């Protein structure tokens, strides 16, 4: 797992920078403080705080016990979760007195169990495979689309432990939401359903819907460049609107190639924002 190293005036700031770089929430990262900031004379800081961080590869113990408990339950013949789900779906299909989107919901869901049996089976001693995580993620998304009465397709790409799930279809705006807030919520939930629930602690999962994230990234990077131009020409720093860590990372990355400005993050989530400042010649 890849480590990033950051320095800042305080340990907190250095940690926040690291989170921005990793693009994950504080709960999903682990830190090592490499150097504490040393106070100099008259309150000036002499040494900077240096931390290194990575995406947390393991979760606390209780989760492991939970996983084992679930496996035990799933071993019972004919009492697997799948059987239960399948039974439930059938009843649902028959019973549904057709309030608008319900029939389609049942139909989409009904395809799931068959697919599930082809999933790689995970040995209790092994962490789930990337394929298993991806299959759970797709199952979750298809169920969600069905419940919403929407149609869409999923495509999964993975590169090592990085998994990207792309959802495409008509009218998926409801799943994106203002500034992608609903998309981030769905991504959180996919992660819980497809990673945490089956005991996966190693893969990194990202979700995109109708290419929103890609477009947003390109737009953000362009916007960052424009803002940086203004900062460079006026010599005055500029704070951007608050945005989630993944978006802040796009800004930091986009401007990292520029030598005339520097970026940092300020404030606490969800109000945390990027500040673009003229490059200080002191550094």
């Amino acid at each position, binding site marked *: 797992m890849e480590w990033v190293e950051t320095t800042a005036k305080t340990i907190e700031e250095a940690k926040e920078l690291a989170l921005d770089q990793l693009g994950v929430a504080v709960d999903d990262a682990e830190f090592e403080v490499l150097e504490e900031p040393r106070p100099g004379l008259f309150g000036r800081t002499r040494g900077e705080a240096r931390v290194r961080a990575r995406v947390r590869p393991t979760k606390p113990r209780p989760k492991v016990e939970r996983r084992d408990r679930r496996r035990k339950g799933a071993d019972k013949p004919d009492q697997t979760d799948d059987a*239960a789900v399948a039974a439930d779906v059938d009843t649902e299909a028959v019973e549904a007195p057709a309030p608008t989107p319900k029939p389609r919901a049942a139909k989409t*869901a009904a395809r799931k169990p068959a697919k599930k049996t082809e999933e790689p089976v995970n040995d209790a001693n092994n962490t789930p495979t990337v394929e298993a995580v991806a299959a759970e993620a797709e199952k979750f998304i298809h169920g969600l689309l069905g419940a919403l009465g929407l149609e869409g397709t999923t495509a999964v790409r993975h590169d090592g432990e990085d998994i990207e799930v792309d959802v495409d279809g008509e009218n998926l705006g409801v799943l994106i939401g203002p500034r992608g807030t609903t998309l981030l919520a769905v991504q959180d939930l996919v992660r819980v359903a497809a990673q945490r629930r089956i005991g996966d602690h190693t893969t990194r999962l990202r979700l995109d819907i109708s290419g929103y994230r890609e477009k947003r990234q390109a737009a953000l990077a362009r916007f960052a460049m424009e803002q940086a131009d203004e900062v460079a020409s006026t010599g005055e720093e500029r704070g951007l609107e608050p945005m989630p860590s993944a978006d802040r990372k796009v800004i930091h990355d986009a401007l990292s190639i520029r030598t005339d400005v520097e970026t940092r993050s300020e404030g606490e989530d969800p109000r945390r924002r990027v500040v673009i400042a003229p490059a200080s010649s002191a550094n």
Partner: protein
Amino acid sequence: MTVENQIPAPVASAVLEHVVRSIVDNPDAVVVSGSPGRGRLRLEVRVGPDDLGRVIGKRGKTAQAIRTLVRAAASRDGVDVEVDFVD
């Protein structure tokens, strides 16, 4: 069938049920019910005793994500909803 038919927000209820069932260890214990709240519909989701922590998540993160998504889904029902979790 765990979603009661009389809930006047079929899309939001179906989404809520799907999401919660997908993240708990005991999906059969998940029950979604609805009751009128102040100016909006209150959706209550009941989960098994061991699953409440999973549904709420660290610092309420998962609960927040569920609320965001279910409120978005409720726009397709044309109603405003709030979501409560109980075990």
